[in-house]
């Protein structure tokens, strides 16, 4: 569905002009048009008050063109849409009223012989002052005084109508948000609104995670949506891979009149572009999905050939729908985060308390063994010792889990505390001694940066536990001369960083996170010589506020 309003009755473009004008009337009309006079007077003078009334009142713009596509007549509505009075329009080229890039398309829609009637098509009128107006145009050919003329009718798609359409679409989108649909269903619904209400061929909404990789998506109008989605995820296309990705990340809308050619030539995008081969598209519009300054993803519009750019009204409409999509996604994330908080609370209330109680009972058992003069090295004694160890380990694991489930945990407790918890849990589980050293004072880092640092160090520690097979590891944070340096080193097996298996160690994710926060990541390792991961980023400790209790 590329044009037309599905909700409106499009039969009979204009009842008064549904059939060709009589030759006599046409001749009269034509003769009168050179004079400066009102269309009402013109038609009234012709003794056709009924027609005059229709022409004057019709909110559709009605124009008559001669065989050379020059205006010979325009009713008041058409004059208003075109931004010029009828005497100025007279003799002007009809095509000059359209954007240059749309003129060929418009020409293709004009009737060439009597009896030709074109289906309504969307286009944009450009006034003499450059003002744009999105209209739906239909045309048919008539014979006037023996020569072929054309009646072109414009129906306004901006202004009140567009506002009504936006309101209707918003109401529907909002209703969908409230409804029980999954986020994906809501995104599909929003995409569908966008395709139905504008000239777009297809619309796809892609939502990304912290690493800018796709997490969920929804689209409408694609010829093979599952394959397109698969192609997108297979290359793990990120926002920065898109042409104009930097502008998107900065929160700006990107219009690419030749996106198709650019994509087919791009190694990252070619696979996705290939799934759109059979689709009529050429240009693209990307509107960022933003919430509180965060980029959640992108609202991608695929425009048909002949429509390289959207009209202002279309762009506004896409922006509104992209905002709706952002709300839907934020809603879903909030729900997920509330659910995680609830889970954290439950785990804390049940499992953690039970495990703490267990460590107490185990110690009680050990003390009563002493009192009963039972051998602590007996099978009973060592089993109890083992239980104590397991309970302590499980408790440490729980603390990390609960910490990671609580969205604000890092902000509340700080990076060093978080890293110590992580180290304790891994130490208990993997029997690796993990030391965490760093400044005891809180670090002046944005929460986003702390989050990335935490994840990078966690990943490095997990690598050590999984691959290094060493006895110990050290995490060290130091800040000096405006640089915060985080090192994670182990005395384990090491590896050859050139050997190409680096991807399996999560190193690319670590590198991406580092890049996101503007940090340098280096990895020093050699077989048998342990591994040191070093992360450096510019850092300036601000003075602590005096209200901080000193």
């Amino acid at each position, binding site marked *: 569905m590329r044009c037309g309003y599905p909700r409106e009755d499009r039969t009979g473009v204009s009842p008064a002009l549904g059939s060709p004008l009589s030759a006599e009337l046409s001749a009269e009309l034509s003769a009168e048009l050179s004079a400066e006079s009102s269309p009402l007077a013109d038609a009234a003078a012709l003794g056709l008050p009924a027609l005059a009334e229709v022409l004057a009142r019709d909110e559709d713009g009605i124009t008559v063109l001669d065989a050379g596509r020059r205006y010979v007549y325009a009713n008041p509505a058409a004059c208003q849409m075109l931004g010029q009075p009828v005497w100025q329009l007279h003799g002007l080229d009809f095509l000059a009223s359209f954007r240059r890039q749309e003129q060929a398309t418009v020409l293709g829609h004009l009737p060439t012989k009597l009896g030709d009637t074109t289906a309504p098509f969307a286009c944009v009128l450009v006034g003499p002052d450059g003002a744009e107006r999105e209209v739906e145009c239909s045309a048919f050919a008539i014979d006037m005084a023996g020569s072929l003329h054309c009646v072109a009718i414009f129906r306004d798609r901006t202004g009140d109508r567009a506002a009504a359409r936006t309101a209707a679409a918003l109401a529907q989108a909002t209703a969908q948000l409230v409804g029980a649909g999954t986020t994906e269903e809501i995104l599909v619904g929003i995409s569908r609104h966008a395709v139905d209400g504008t000239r777009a061929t297809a619309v796809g909404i892609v939502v990304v995670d912290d690493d800018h990789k796709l997490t969920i998506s929804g689209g409408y109008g694609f010829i093979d949506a599952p394959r397109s989605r698969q192609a997108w995820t297979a290359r793990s296309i990120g926002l920065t891979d898109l042409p104009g990705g930097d502008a998107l990340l900065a929160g700006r809308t990107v219009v690419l009149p030749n996106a198709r050619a650019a994509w087919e030539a791009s190694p990252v995008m070619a696979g996705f572009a290939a799934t759109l081969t059979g689709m009529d598209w050429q240009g693209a519009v990307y509107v960022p999905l933003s919430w509180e300054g965060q980029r959640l993803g992108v609202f991608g519009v695929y425009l048909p050939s002949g429509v390289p750019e959207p009209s202002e009204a279309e762009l506004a409409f896409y922006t509104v729908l992209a905002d709706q999509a952002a709300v839907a996604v934020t809603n879903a994330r909030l729900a997920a985060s509330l659910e995680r908080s609830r889970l954290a609370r439950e785990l804390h209330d049940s499992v953690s308390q039970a495990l703490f*109680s267990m*460590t107490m009972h185990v*110690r*009680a058992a050990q003390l*009563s063994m002493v009192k009963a003069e039972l051998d602590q090295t007996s099978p009973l004694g060592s089993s109890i010792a083992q239980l104590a160890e397991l309970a302590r380990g499980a408790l440490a694991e729980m603390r990390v889990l609960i910490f990671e489930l609580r969205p604000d945990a890092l902000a509340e407790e700080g990076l060093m505390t978080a890293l110590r918890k992580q180290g304790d849990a891994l130490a208990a589980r993997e029997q690796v001694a993990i030391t965490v050293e760093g400044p005891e*004072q809180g670090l002046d880092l944005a929460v986003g940066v702390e989050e990335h640092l935490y994840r990078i160090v966690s990943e490095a520690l997990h690598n050590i536990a999984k691959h290094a097979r060493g006895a110990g590891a050290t995490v060290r944070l130091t800040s000096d001369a405006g640089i915060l340096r985080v090192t994670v080193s182990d005395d384990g097996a090491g590896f050859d960083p050139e050997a190409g298996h680096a991807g399996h160690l999560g190193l690319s994710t670590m590198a991406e996170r580092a890049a996101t926060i503007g940090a340098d990541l280096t990895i020093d390792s050699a077989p048998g010589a342990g591994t040191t991961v070093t992360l450096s980023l510019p850092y300036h400790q601000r003075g*602590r506020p005096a209200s901080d209790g*000193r």
Partner: protein
Amino acid sequence: MGADARAIRVFLVDDHRIVRSGVAAYLEQVDDIEVIGEAGDGRQALDRIAAGEPGGGLPDVVLMDLLMPGLDGISATRQIRTRWPSVEVVALTSFAEEAKVRSALEAGAAGYLLKDADADDVAQAIRAAVAGQMHLDDGVARLLADSLRAPRRPADTLTPREREVLALVARGASNRQIAETLVVSERTARTHVSAILAKLDLVSRTQAALWAVREGNTSA
């Protein structure tokens, strides 16, 4: 401990029954400590402690969870310390946020333990509280040290007398105890403490005590 020494009387407050049972089972095996009662929230704790008072049954130490329905642990701590100054409170909780720790200490808690402490740490904290010392979980101590990082105001801006007073504060002495020890009036003791707080740019005795511990100013 001597045969005639009385066991330390402990009262447990926690909304998790399994935690009370675990701690009680452990303390049962510790000779110098006995559990004399327990409660599931702050209100119940106040009621039960009050009910035991007439028979001379006040606890020496209350082991207090902080996050509980009804009257929370911090309010309960404040009320206990106001009503029965001889009763020490040790917080035993899962949370190590700085604000919680501060509130608990300012409400008068003599210790702060996390619920991943070793069992023996719990007994140790109880004994420390009775001895007038403060026992803090390692992580909690780090957190406080951070928040108390004073501007570099060397201890030598304090007069010798003030250093003596600070050492007593660090050992948990009240103004009256300071007055008795130094043979001055209670008002003078209070003036010294105020002067110390002003010089060190601190707001509470607890902070002063922590500062003293960190700076090694604990013996006069």
